[in-house]
């Protein structure tokens, strides 16, 4: 740990807790509280990562969560930002995007070919011959990139979280703290968030020791909650802000938002400005004050204002030999801080820029910088230079506002020349800006500006606050930085160099010439420039590059920054792990009360809408098809029990219930006798079949309606809608979930049920399609005789919480009769044998009842039902298709048709298969299909195109396939 400084107040490391970890296969040591970058830097390691495109060596640059050239992977995670990732015992990481390791990365020679890879080269090169591009693309992707996701990594879920507050304050620098205190003192619930692990912002490393009183106030206020390590990554409508921490994404709804996010320090553009050792001034200060790491041994500072001089003094105080301070201003720093730098013996080179940075021989780290005198046009004079040996350069040439949230909220920014910065000119309702993002820099001014913002937020939320604007401080009004000459930001710290490699965007390895070239090619608009050059599209999202790009383009266009504009800021402001976005999965599944019993009986489940239903029950080693057929055959021969709790169940009551149903469904219900059930077919206004079911009349004004499984909610909504539109006196109650149902069906069903109910089941008393109320297994139930599968059957509806009891009782009672449960697939086969269609399987979004053979369900002579008028129109038109039954020869061996295979006629699509079963109780494969009407007559043959494009022949058959007289369901 050669670079570790003596213990200092406020350091984030815990020296009593040494931590050992591995980087690139080597063991290193740091302290608890160190990040990977700081621990390595303290250990004398300067090469921490490789750049995205050219694999240039990179080290600490911002140390502010934006060092995206120093990404590491390990422990199943990748693209970990080493500048903020804390070290942990046993951690073993390596740099991403290398071949052969960081230090001997074979891909570092890519830079040799950089002349052949100008901006946008992949839009122009390798496109002819066409086969070349995929090869080139793969090669480019292999060379350039970030970490690789390991598909074998297993992570736990990331919680989803909502949160609420009156005032959200983003940023805990002096302005944010002050805003939080001001709002909290008005009695508001304040949430204070900061991406750094501790509150204080720049007070912790730039103005050390200041603002302690504010921090203590925040800690003492019970109505201020603080979330550190949390980034406000996106602003959405109505003050909905996405907060991201290491574990989760929180959806925060605030009453008002104060954005005190500060600024991003900006680099200077010169040859070699990315060599490890070149870093932002704030990065050097963070190293010193937060991690007690000496950033360099012999250093140079590039400055354009008081902040740079402060960096020089901090370095001096940390034992760094500050070999020079280059000040971009001819006049230098006139205030007290300028004198202190001179008193410290630091040579100051006024009106100089850094023109070049050089490596230390072959080492991937800084060895020297070349300062050049600037002329009046802010251009370096290559003839008037001075070379200074150093291992570090701290660059402090200004800032760009961290205004992403404000942009996303709809703020309008304008360029303020007093601070050479974009600042918010107009803000949306309920959003306030404070501090440096607002162009306010002097410490006391920032505190006042924060107070003003906090009070304005309180006023916005209805608190009586007297003139918050009295605290107003805007950049153009006040003293910028107590004695500073000019603003804290230089308007154009960009210096051309004939050898290039003067990077604007370190994420994407874009240097100045790339922008000049793009501009020459006509990309002279900032949005076009962004897309063509990819500036700002790297992992840091251009936090150090976007403003420089705007300045460069403005100069190339001879325009102002305001005229040039900025790119659009969209969420997320900072990368968010996909796992955070996915969050904990809530996929509610509906289960019937008997679900556990089905599991124990070997059920294989299938998804039917939101429901889980038994598809079939596995018995021994039977195949799926064998199981399904065995279940169906058992129903035909003995008795079966199916869980139909998923059916929609709706109570329709009231004096106009019958009239209501008669309008809603196609059939007649006013004439329906109490104690009888009727098939019900529902159409939409265009005459399309949308549902079917059974309507049972249990009293003059009480009906019980079933719907298909997937349409229960939709039909209930339809009923509510029509009841309102028609203003009819009906009471509707959706009983789908709170009641359940089973269908006991098969020749032995009557004998099984007889011992369990007080209902008289004799055919005369309880005939086919009758409905009754009574007790079944001691539970109040509605029982309906239905014939969907074509056997004697009783559909029993009862309260859901008695489901297990009733199911068990029926199974027990039916054991001697050979009862076994059957699943959805067996039911589908049985109803197919009867030629009964399933709405939405055998019909689609255009099927009308004439095509589907459902005309029997259309009440004749009715004045009105939904869809009636459309049907009348359709009747006058030529029928386009017809649903028919079909068979294949009993000895057919395949290839088999499947649902949705096409019916082909003269090479054109003439229909499709809607249902099919290879094996049936009628001894041959059967199915339903749409065909053209001229092919609908029994005995007609038609072609089906099956898997692989082969054509097979099917024959239209008369429906039903099984028990055409219907005697089995009506005994």
């Amino acid at each position, binding site marked *: 740990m050669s670079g570790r400084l003596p213990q200092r107040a406020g350091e984030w490391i815990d020296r009593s807790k040494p931590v050992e970890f591995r980087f690139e296969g080597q063991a290193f040591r740091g302290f608890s509280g160190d990040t990977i970058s700081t621990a390595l830097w303290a250990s004398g390691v300067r090469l921490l990562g490789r750049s995205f495109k050219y694999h240039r060596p990179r080290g600490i640059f911002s140390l502010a969560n934006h060092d995206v050239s120093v990404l590491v992977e390990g422990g199943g995670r990748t693209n970990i930002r080493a500048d903020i990732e804390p070290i942990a015992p046993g951690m073993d990481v390596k740099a991403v995007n290398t071949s052969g390791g960081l230090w001997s990365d074979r891909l570092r020679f890519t830079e040799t070919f950089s002349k052949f890879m100008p901006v946008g080269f992949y839009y122009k090169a390798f496109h002819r011959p066409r086969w070349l591009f995929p090869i080139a693309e793969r090669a480019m992707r292999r060379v350039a990139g970030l970490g690789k996701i390991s598909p074998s990594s297993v992570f736990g879920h990331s*919680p*989803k*979280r*909502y*949160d*609420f507050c009156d005032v959200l304050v983003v940023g805990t620098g002096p302005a944010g703290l002050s805003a939080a205190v001001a709002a909290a003192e008005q009695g508001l*619930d304040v949430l204070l968030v900061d991406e750094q692990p501790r509150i204080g912002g720049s007070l912790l490393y730039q103005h050390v020791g200041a603002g302690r009183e504010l921090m203590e106030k925040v800690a003492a206020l019970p109505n201020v909650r603080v979330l550190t390590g949390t980034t406000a990554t996106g602003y959405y409508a109505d003050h909905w802000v996405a907060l991201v921490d290491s574990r989760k994404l929180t*959806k925060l*709804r605030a009453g008002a938002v104060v954005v005190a996010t500060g600024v991003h320090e900006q680099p200077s553009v010169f040859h070699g400005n990315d060599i490890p050792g070149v870093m932002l001034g704030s990065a050097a200060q963070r190293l010193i004050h937060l991690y007690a790491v000496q950033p360099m041994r012999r250093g140079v500072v590039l400055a354009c204002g008081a902040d740079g001089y402060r960096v020089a003094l901090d370095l001096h105080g940390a034992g760094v030999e500050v070999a020079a301070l280059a000040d971009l201003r001819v006049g230098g720093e006139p205030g007290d801080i300028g004198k202190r730098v001179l008193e410290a013996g630091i040579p100051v080179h006024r009106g100089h820029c850094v023109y070049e940075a050089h490596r230390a021989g072959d080492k991937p780290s800084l060895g020297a910088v070349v300062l050049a005198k600037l002329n009046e046009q802010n251009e370096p004079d290559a003839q008037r230079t001075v070379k200074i040996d150093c291992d570090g350069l701290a660059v402090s040439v200004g800032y760009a506002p961290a205004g992403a949230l404000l942009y996303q909220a709809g703020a309008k920014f304008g360029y303020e020349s007093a601070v050479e910065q974009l600042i918010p000119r107009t803000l949306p309702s309920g959003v306030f800006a404070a501090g440096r993002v607002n162009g306010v820099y002097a410490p006391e001014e920032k505190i006042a500006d924060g107070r003003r913002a906090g009070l304005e937020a309180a006023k916005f939320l209805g608190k009586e606050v007297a003139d918050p604007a009295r605290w107003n401080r805007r950049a153009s009004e006040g003293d910028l930085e107590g004695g500073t000459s000019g603003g804290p930001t230089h308007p154009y710290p960009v210096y051309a160099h004939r050898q290039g490699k003067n990077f604007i965007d370190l994420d994407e390895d874009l240097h100045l010439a790339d922008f000049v070239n793009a501009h020459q090619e006509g990309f002279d608009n900032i949005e076009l420039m962004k897309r063509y050059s990819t500036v700002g599209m790297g992992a840091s999202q251009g936090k150090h590059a976007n403003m420089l790009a705007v300045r460069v383009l403005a100069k190339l266009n001879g325009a102002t920054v305001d005229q040039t504009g900025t790119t659009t800021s969209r969420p997320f402001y900072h990368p968010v792990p996909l796992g955070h976005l996915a969050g*904990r999965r*809530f*996929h*509610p*599944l*509906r*289960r*019937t*009360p008997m*679900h*556990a019993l089905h599991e124990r009986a070997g059920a294989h489940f299938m998804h039917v809408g939101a*429901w889980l239903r038994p598809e079939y029950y596995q018995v021994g080693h039977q195949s799926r098809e064998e199981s399904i057929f065995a279940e169906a055959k058992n129903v035909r021969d003995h008795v079966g029990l199916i869980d139909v*709790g998923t059916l929609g169940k709706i*109570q329709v*009551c*009231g004096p106009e*219930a019958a009239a209501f149903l008669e309008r809603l469904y196609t059939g007649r219900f006013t004439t329906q006798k109490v104690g009888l059930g009727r098939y019900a077919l529902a159409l939409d206004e265009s005459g399309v079949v949308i549902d079917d079911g059974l309507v049972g009349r249990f*009293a003059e*004004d*009480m009906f019980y309606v079933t719907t298909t499984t997937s349409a229960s909610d939709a039909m209930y909504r339809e009923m509510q809608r029509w009841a309102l539109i028609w203003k009819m006196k009906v*009471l509707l*109650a959706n*009983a*789908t*979930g*709170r*009641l*359940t149902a089973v269908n006991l069906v098969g020749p032995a069903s009557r004998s099984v049920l007889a011992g369990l109910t007080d209902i008289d089941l004799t055919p005369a008393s309880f005939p086919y399609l009758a409905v009754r109320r009574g007790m079944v*297994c*001691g*539970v*109040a139930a509605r029982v309906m005789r239905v014939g969907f599968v074509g056997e004697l059957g009783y559909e029993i509806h009862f*309260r*859901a*919480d*008695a*489901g*297990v*009891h009733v199911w068990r009782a029926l199974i027990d009672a039916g054991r001697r009769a050979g009862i076994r449960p059957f699943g959805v697939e067996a039911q589908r086969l049985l109803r197919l044998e009867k030629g009964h269609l399933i709405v939405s399987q055998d019909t689609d979004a255009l099927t009308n009842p004439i095509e589907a053979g459902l005309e029997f369900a259309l009440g004749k002579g009715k004045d009105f039902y939904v869809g009636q008028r459309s049907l009348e129109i359709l009747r006058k038109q030529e029928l386009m298709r017809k649903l028919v039954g079909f068979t294949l020869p009993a000895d057919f061996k395949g290839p088999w048709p499947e649902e949705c295979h096409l019916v082909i006629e003269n090479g054109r699509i003439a229909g499709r298969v809607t249902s099919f079963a290879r094996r049936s109780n009628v001894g041959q494969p059967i199915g339903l299909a749409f065909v053209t009407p001229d092919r609908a007559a029994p005995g007609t043959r038609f072609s089906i195109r099956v898997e692989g494009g082969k054509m097979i022949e099917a024959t239209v058959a008369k429906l039903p396939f099984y028990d055409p007289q219907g005697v089995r369901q009506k005994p």
Partner: protein
Amino acid sequence: MIQSPVHDWLAAHGAKWSRHPGLAAHVGEPSAERVACAELAWCDLSALPKLGLKGDRSADWLAGQGIAVPGARYETGPLSDGGLIARTDAHEFFLHSGPGASVVPKLDDLLRASPVSNPLHVERSDAVFALLGRRADQVLLETCGLNPRPRKLPLGHVVMTRVAGVSCALLPETFTNTTGYRVWLDPTLAVSLWESVEEIVRDLGGSVVGAGCVYPVLTPG
């Protein structure tokens, strides 16, 4: 014969059943449950009797049976057996008996025998859970978009919302020795919700408790 939708889950986790059929008095050690109840706990109350009424004569009918009917939509009130009544719409009520389990069965019998369709007797098998403890809000914040602060979710009210993706009625409530929320939902979604919330409760250091925590009169039978 009445069974909670999460009966199997409770049985698999060592539930000790109360004398009330299907209601677990405890799932863990009673002393540990008491601690959990104060901090964070998840509890099943589904087996207590429930009843629904619908129709413009419901309020008068209920009043005629001596029930104190909540005056406004989404208000709740107590039942004499320790349960509660909620007005879920202008003419719609939901009743959930307490451990005495006397009110709902009586009304249920009366309605079942009634030949009229107004008030409409609505058989309810809803799942009813209770999210209990000082940190119950933390669970809501991970599962529900509602602001759980008291002034947003006042006591004595019912709120229709979604918890963990499931449509629910949520009732802020003061229980014996603790506060929390009663949650009503469609029983077919109960297992999904139970498992989702149970996992979150466990993540946050809470646990599943028996109904004995909410109703101390319920002891293992």
